[in-house]
């Protein structure tokens, strides 16, 4: 189907029995301002075309005008549900370019907050996914558990969503008093709560009926479209950056990586859910072995990395977040290109949606775990 510059289908392009449904930017189930144009034939979807750009805030251009240090709080606001991994990707890129060595304790703290962030992000995903499928209650439970994590972050860096915690050369500050105790309490509480969610929602027959066999993506398709994270692992491809290209002390920890089989919504959802258990294991290992030392390396106040370019990637809760950083030797980056996983996954939407019913599109979008902040930047 051809799309005109006004983003409408060209006239005369639809088949006789088809019509268009506009799942508009304002919709309770699109997780942000996403517009999806559905081409429907009776009950079956023929095509699903995403229309993005409603949340574009010129991140990459603004970053060219700010110093390297100042861009860190800006990266928070891209994938706002998992801000720590964004900051991590960016500061890792700058450190790689400038050849800055990060102290050991800082690396461990980075892993700690990244894994706490992963659990928080997956809880948001779980709650909103259940909400899309009609079950209101799991959302409230997920938010209730997420409050524990947000309290930890509030004590650690002062904010609950846009942390501004990572710094070039380390992290902003050390753990406040009581943090380790509270985190251990959380680690004791969480597995039983996760099992409750399994009983309430993940093992529910209605949920299984609505997600098994829906939105299938084969492994080849997933790799070809650049999927990563649980979207890729749900299709059976065993690839996790934390284990296969370790960064920031991840090589010191033992954890499993859940991999699905059939690449449907159910497998992706179960992968994401099981990752929460693994993150709990990692956090426990971090707390048990946290080394002493500085949390921040000495970095010149005005940082001027040598000219060159670098690409770093981290495993965010959504998939592979990549930063391509180009420096010209000055105090401000020449180019910051952000590789967002949700952007690639959105391109998989027509592939996943083809042949299914209109009522399935909500489940499919929910399984991609899309955040428009990083799609639109």
């Amino acid at each position: 189907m051809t799309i005109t510059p006004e983003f409408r289908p060209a006239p005369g392009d639809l088949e006789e029995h088809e019509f268009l449904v506009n799942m508009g930017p304002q919709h309770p189930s699109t997780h942000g301002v996403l517009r999806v144009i559905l081409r429907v034939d009776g009950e079956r979807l023929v095509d699903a075309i995403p229309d993005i750009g409603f949340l574009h805030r010129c991140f990459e251009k603004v970053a060219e005008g700010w110093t390297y240090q100042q861009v860190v709080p800006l990266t928070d606001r891209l994938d706002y549900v998992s801000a720590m991994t964004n900051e991590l990707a960016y500061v890792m890129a700058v450190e790689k370019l400038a050849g800055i060595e990060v102290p050991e304790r800082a690396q461990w703290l980075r892993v700690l907050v990244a894994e706490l962030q992963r659990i928080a992000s997956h809880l948001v995903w779980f709650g909103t996914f259940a909400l899309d499928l009609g079950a209101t209650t799991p959302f409230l439970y997920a938010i209730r558990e997420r409050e524990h994590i947000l309290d930890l972050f509030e004590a650690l860096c002062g904010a609950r969503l846009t942390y501004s915690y990572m710094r070039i050369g380390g992290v902003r500050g050390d753990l406040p008093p009581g943090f380790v105790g509270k985190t251990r309490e959380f680690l004791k509480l969480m597995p039983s709560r996760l099992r409750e969610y399994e009983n309430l929602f993940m093992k529910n027959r209605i949920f299984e009926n609505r997600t098994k066999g829906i939105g299938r993506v084969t492994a080849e398709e997933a790799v070809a479209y650049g999927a990563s994270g649980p979207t890729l692992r749900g299709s059976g491809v065993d690839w996790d950056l934390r284990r296969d290209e370790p960064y920031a002390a991840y090589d010191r920890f033992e954890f499993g990586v859940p991999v699905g089989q059939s690449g449907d919504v159910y497998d992706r959802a179960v992968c994401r859910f099981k990752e929460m258990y693994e993150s709990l294991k990692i956090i426990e290992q971090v707390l048990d072995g946290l080394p002493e030392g500085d949390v921040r390396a000495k970095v010149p106040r005005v940082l001027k990395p040598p000219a060159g370019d670098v690409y770093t990637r981290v495993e965010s809760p959504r998939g592979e977040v990549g930063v391509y950083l180009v420096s010209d030797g000055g105090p401000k980056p020449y180019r910051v290109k952000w590789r967002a996983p949700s952007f690639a996954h959105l391109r998989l939407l027509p592939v996943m949606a083809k042949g299914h019913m209109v009522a399935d599109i909500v489940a499919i979008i929910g399984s991609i775990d899309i955040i428009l902040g990083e799609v639109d930047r």
Partner: protein
Amino acid sequence: MTSGPPDLRLTGGERMHNLTSLLTGFWSFICGLWVTLVNTVRPPVTFQYPEKYYVPLEGFRGYPALVVDPETGETKCNGCQACARACPLGVIHIETAQREDKKRYPVEWRLEFGRCMVCNLCVEACPFGALTMSPEYEFAEYRPEDLVYTLGNLKLPPEGFEVRRLDGSTVRTGLAGGGRG
């Protein structure tokens, strides 16, 4: 349909139709109902704001505030503009003058809080520890002009603020402390 035979992909509905699957499905509902029942007897985690004030945790970033020397009542700021340079959005404006003993002091200190993103870079940039983050969060004003804070309302109040710690204790903060991060 004009595009050929219908797509008969499995939709999961087929799973309903034998007795064991029916019984296991029913059992999954019972498990879910049990979870909900258990949660009914847990106490609520919400409370009524504003009747009960939410005491933020120590270190909460509310807005940048000027630390006040307890004896003199003056700020520690000497107008070096390090915070204004560090601010990514440029919301800090300081004008200085010199006192008799050649010490600089700020005569006008303006923060356009409507545009501040509370990123903490100014607090970290200050070499004298003159800035800190006040843990207040009730900022609503009727006019955008009222969101521009000046020297008078940026100074930390002498009684400080009550904040919580993770171990459950409450402390008073912001008296004369502050400084880096």
